[in-house]
């Protein structure tokens, strides 16, 4: 059972004319109707979908554009880079052929780097988001529902995880984890680095969401409908899946929408510090790293990942806010 959204409870004064229709609206449908009316929300959703489409269609874009993110155009074609490895043309070598310019030194196409870079960042962030949310849900519900010693134990683990200096730890541990699978003189496979990044990000992020959900479960557990279910002999599994979980989807969804951009920036920050994705896989974070190395001579190169990430994060944060407003009209920002 779910708590009925307030609007369902009675046809309001303004909705009186459409009363019969209102009666059949599910909470999900109401949420959608409310969301559709939110212009900022719809606009940010469009931007987010645009980013997702670009990531999904990267090979198609590459085919239409006629270039790929790996070829070293600047080195293959003389006259594009000068003797110092910087683009000859002004503004980072932007031209009708290279829309966003050329990467200094290596001479790769910046537009393609950016398009394929979304893929890497989004895939890693999305995988970590799914893992973080799953672990967070399990830990939060177990701690909140079981209570007692289990709750205490999980609570201490959460506290401990939150006290770790996570960035420093991830940087320090990257070589340790890889050392377990790859001998020092071998090269790290790309998939292993990606998996390590996802695991590391997950290890330090689950605690936050678990703590929030634990609090929610603690208050839900005492509610009448859970008590009623227990009295009528519902099994713990039924209470968790049919009574508690449906009421937790809102905070879970909100947390997940806010988590994804946070993880994209966290991954970018790690790449910036030199422990992110390895060459030649295109990655926004590594573009930042390169951009901050060459900014004195070629500031344009830094602008593209910078502005792209800014737009992406703003859109996602706005979307998160709108989703929250749509789900819970009581909370006003």
């Amino acid at each position, binding site marked *: 059972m779910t708590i009925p959204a307030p609007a369902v409870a009675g046809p309001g004064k303004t909705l009186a004319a459409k009363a019969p229709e209102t009666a059949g609206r599910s909470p999900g449908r109401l949420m959608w109707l409310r969301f559709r009316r939110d212009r900022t929300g719809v606009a940010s959703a469009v931007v987010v979908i645009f980013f997702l489409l670009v990531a999904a269609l990267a090979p198609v874009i590459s085919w239409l554009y006629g270039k790929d993110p790996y070829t070293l155009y600047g080195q293959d074609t003389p006259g594009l880079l000068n003797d110092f490895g910087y683009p000859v043309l002004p503004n980072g070598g932007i031209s009708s052929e290279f829309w966003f310019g050329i990467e200094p030194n290596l001479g790769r196409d910046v537009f393609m780097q950016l398009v394929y870079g979304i893929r890497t960042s989004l895939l890693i962030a999305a995988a970590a988001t799914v893992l973080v949310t799953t672990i967070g849900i399990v830990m939060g519900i177990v701690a909140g529902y079981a209570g007692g010693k289990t709750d205490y134990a999980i609570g201490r683990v959460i506290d401990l995880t939150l006290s770790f200096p996570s960035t420093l730890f991830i940087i320090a541990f990257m070589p340790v984890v890889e050392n377990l699978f790859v001998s020092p003189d071998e090269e790290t496979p790309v998939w292993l680095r990606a998996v390590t990044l996802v695991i590391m990000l997950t290890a330090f992020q689950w605690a936050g969401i678990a703590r929030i959900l634990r609090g929610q479960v603690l208050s839900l557990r005492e509610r009448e409908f859970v008590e009623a279910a227990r009295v009528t002999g519902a099994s713990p599994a039924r209470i968790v899946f049919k009574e508690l979980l449906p009421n937790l989807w809102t905070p879970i969804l909100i947390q997940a929408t806010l988590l994804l951009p946070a993880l994209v920036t966290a991954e970018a920050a790690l790449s*910036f510090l030199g422990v992110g994705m390895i060459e030649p896989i295109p990655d926004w974070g590594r573009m930042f790293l390169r951009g901050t190395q060459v900014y004195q001579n070629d500031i344009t190169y830094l602008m593209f990942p910078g502005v792209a990430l800014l737009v992406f994060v703003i859109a996602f944060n706005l979307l998160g806010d709108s989703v929250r407003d749509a789900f819970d009209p009581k909370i006003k920002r």
Partner: protein
Amino acid sequence: MLRFLTRRALGAVVTLVVISAVTFFLFFAVPADPARLACGKVCPPELLEQARHNLGLDQPLFAQFTAWLAGIFVGRDYGGLGHCPAPCLGYSFVNKAPVFETILDRLPVTVSLTVGAALVFLLFGVATGIIAALNQGRPLDKIASVSSLIGFSLQIYFVGTLALYFLVYQNQILTRPQYRPFTEDPLAWAAGLALPWVVLSIIFTANYTRMTRSTMVEQLGEDYVRTARAKGMKGRSVVMRFALRGTLTTVITIFGVDLGALIGGAIITETTFGLQGLGRLSINAVTDSDLPVLMATVLVAAGAIIVFNIIVDALYAFIDPRVRLS
């Protein structure tokens, strides 16, 4: 109050020991040999063996850990390799100095960076948040929320580098970020850190504006605020004495988290501006496989987070009488 603090302090010590144990055992898997570092580049096998013995590396892992823990209180002697006085967090053979000295040497950089920026973003963020809340829905509020959304989504390495490019290299408005001790020349100290302060503030202010505004709006709708108004209290004193007080708990929570994280080592900020603080020290320790320094920086960072958590919890009690230590 005293009982509360003692209990929390004990808890903090336990957490720190657990964190250092986890760090210690996990880092043991790092492909680095401290004895080789201590011995130097050209090292005959028998000398290496000697170094290993002096460092205690031939002991079982657990004994090594307890020796390391004991060193913090009584100091350690590494045979002929070096001596490390009382608060001994280890001896770095990369820096050729006790780790504690290096940490003390770098701490002022990080503290200066943090304190300067924190003052700006706390005052500025709370002020804009209050103004936005009092002008709810009006243009001022809209400006505040749009700019805080942008600030919230900006990255230090992006804004910081842009600021370096436009304010330092192109126009020479500010000097290149560098650290000069406050005691030597306060003006040079402030000038050298001005740019990092501004950039950190741009990014952190946003969160304070958002939080202050939303909590303030909530507070202004509370019954006790309405009662105060109804009894004829002036608008300004209602805001200052009632609504602001309720808002402060939220602000202090995030301020504690931010301060703890920054003092523990503003890794990205220090990297962006090339400042040699604790964050930079830890990154260098990773690159050089300098385990003692790495251990110590992790411990200091975790310690900072924990200490500020306790301070925040204690402050709650002063601000909000309802929390008074249940």
